[in-house]
């Protein structure tokens, strides 16, 4: 009855993929953040899983650290942002609903196409999980293109980071624990800076919608 390990990993990977897809469709910022929270939680599961497998205490500690940063601190900051600047609904996207879904489908098809086929030779047991995480990467880049709000751009970057880390874990390419500490510390600084920038943008431009920021062009 117990699912094999690879099936569980594949299931978790599909959850990340679905979170990335839903980020396009959701309208309220708060649901956007909760989707991000789900994604980072799954990534922590991956880390704990590999920590157990390689039974290295350092990796365990890294997992906790990531959990702390990605699941608790980042969403806390974002909710603070939403409350402070009462940005309830995200500004709309450039493409309407159905077309976004069409593009997402194309991207997933592309991820599974022969262009990325060499990547499947990377790992034996769960190639389709790998391709799913690749699709998640492409979709989160597209999220950046599609969304107009500052907040959604932040979440887009972070979900791209999650997708890459999940890709790494699936292909066992993840960096050594102390490297990961560096990365997560880097991410933390990034979140703080972005938070401060959101404050400054709101103070100067009055709204958190990025379309207002288009006066830096060649006259």
């Amino acid at each position, binding site marked *: 009855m117990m699912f094999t390990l690879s099936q569980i990993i594949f299931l978790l990977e599909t959850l990340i993929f679905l979170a990335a897809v839903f980020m396009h469709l959701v309208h309220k910022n708060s649901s956007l953040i909760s989707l991000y929270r789900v994604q980072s939680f799954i990534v922590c599961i991956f880390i704990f899983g590999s920590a157990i497998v390689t039974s290295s205490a350092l990796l365990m500690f890294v997992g906790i650290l990531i959990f702390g940063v990605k699941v608790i601190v980042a969403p806390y900051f974002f909710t603070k942002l939403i409350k402070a600047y009462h940005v309830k609904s995200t500004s709309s996207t450039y493409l309407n609903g159905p077309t976004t879904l069409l593009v997402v489908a194309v991207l997933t098809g592309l991820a599974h196409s022969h262009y990325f086929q*060499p990547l499947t030779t990377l790992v034996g047991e769960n190639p389709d999980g790998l391709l799913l995480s690749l699709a998640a990467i492409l979709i989160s880049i597209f999220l950046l293109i599609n969304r107009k709000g500052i907040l959604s751009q932040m979440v887009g970057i972070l979900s791209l980071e999650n997708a890459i880390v999940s890709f790494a874990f699936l292909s066992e390419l993840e960096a*050594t624990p102390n*490297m990961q500490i560096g990365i997560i510390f880097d991410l933390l600084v990034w979140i703080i800076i972005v938070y401060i920038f959101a404050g400054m943008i709101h103070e100067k431009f009055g709204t958190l919608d990025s379309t207002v920021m288009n006066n830096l062009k060649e006259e």
Partner: protein
Amino acid sequence: MALLIIFGIILISILLSSLVKKRSQALGRVAIVASIIELLATLFVFNQVFKNGVYALSSYFLVDYFGIIVMLIIAVIGLVASWYSVGYLEVEMARGFIGYSRVKQFFILLHFFILAMFFAVVTTSPILMWISIEATTLSTAFLISFYSKPSAIEAAWKYLIINSLGLLIGFLGTLLFFHPAIGNPHNGFLTWGWATANVSKFDPHIIRLAFIFILIGYGTKVGLVPMHTWLPDAHSKAPVPISSLLSGVLLNIAFLAILRFKVITDLVVGAAYSQGLLIFLGLISVLVPAFIIFTQKNYKRLLAYSSIEHMGVVALGFGFGGAGAFAAILHMLYHSLTKSLLFLASGNIFLKYGSTKIKNVANVLKTLPGTGILFFIGFLAITGMPPFGIFLTEVSIMVAGIKSYFWVVAVAVLALALIFAGFLRHIAAMMFGGPEKEISLGEVNKNALAPIILLAVILLVLSFYLPNNLKSIITLASLAY
């Protein structure tokens, strides 16, 4: 040992400058002393590398030929920029644009920035290099939005988002690059040495994919054309010493990253693949700015676009390989010197005329004789007029490329001529022009000229006489490409 000195000094200066409370010259003096010590340490490392090929501190830090050249650039431009920013910020503070706390913040972030750059060049592990380049982005984000005007914040925001996206793609590339490390639990600390050691284990298909991710990722940091959009905004809105550091130094470091990966890709897949990509990106990076420069209205953006174009020429140089690589490295050196000279001189012009628009800057040769002449020399150097080095390197890059890519060279040469035409139009309008009405004559901040003159002297000396130890190091560095 010398590397430790460098990092130590920077950390100490960060501490000191954060402690300084009251308005005093201490900030500036700390910065200048720190950069002088860094320069001395770099020179020490330089002749270490010249003597025994490589200078390794521990398994984490290693300075090879190319590394020491970029370190030299960082040290020299760092010294000149911090020396200039002391005077520059003084005047800005006197005019009440910025308060003392901002100046303190400026110097702290400046030290972080230089630390991150040194770190990026010196580390042996690609992921550590990625982290330090990410750190440079973060440290400069606030420096770009230094004047906290809406346009500065917009530029900083765009800079932040685009560079983070680029670096994440680069991160994916780095991960893919080290795919043979699966399974073997080697303490996971992958270094360049390890990669070049067991090249056989690499799978060519994955490497081809990975190199594209690397090229696009770090190419965003270098500012090659399709990914260049953040560069003109960021470099024109940042305070002048920072934009000279950004244009002169940071672009070279990012290019160094790409070249480190290129060495491995060439070993695995053969040189033609990476050279073809570099030539393609290099050519469009020369073409697009060529047209934009022709009708540019703002002289700081003009200099930013010229940085993109010169990075395109360097990419062409490495794309052609062989003698082209040697000329490309030298081109990097000359470009960083000339570009920071031009940016610092434009800083003086900005202080005097208060606007970055070309149309309300005129008669600079009369009002600012010193800066005017230096700006003109910089213009002649940057557009590749003979007495200066850039002409020599551009011609030898074209010579290296003519053998197999005639049409690429033909288009590049004509684009360079178009750039010269555009540049001359703007510079002639700024330098000469009718008698300005109420602009008072004479330089604004007295000690601003000295650093620029130092740069001009170094450029002229290097154009004519290349010291042979520098020459041999460059040749050795270019052998790999």
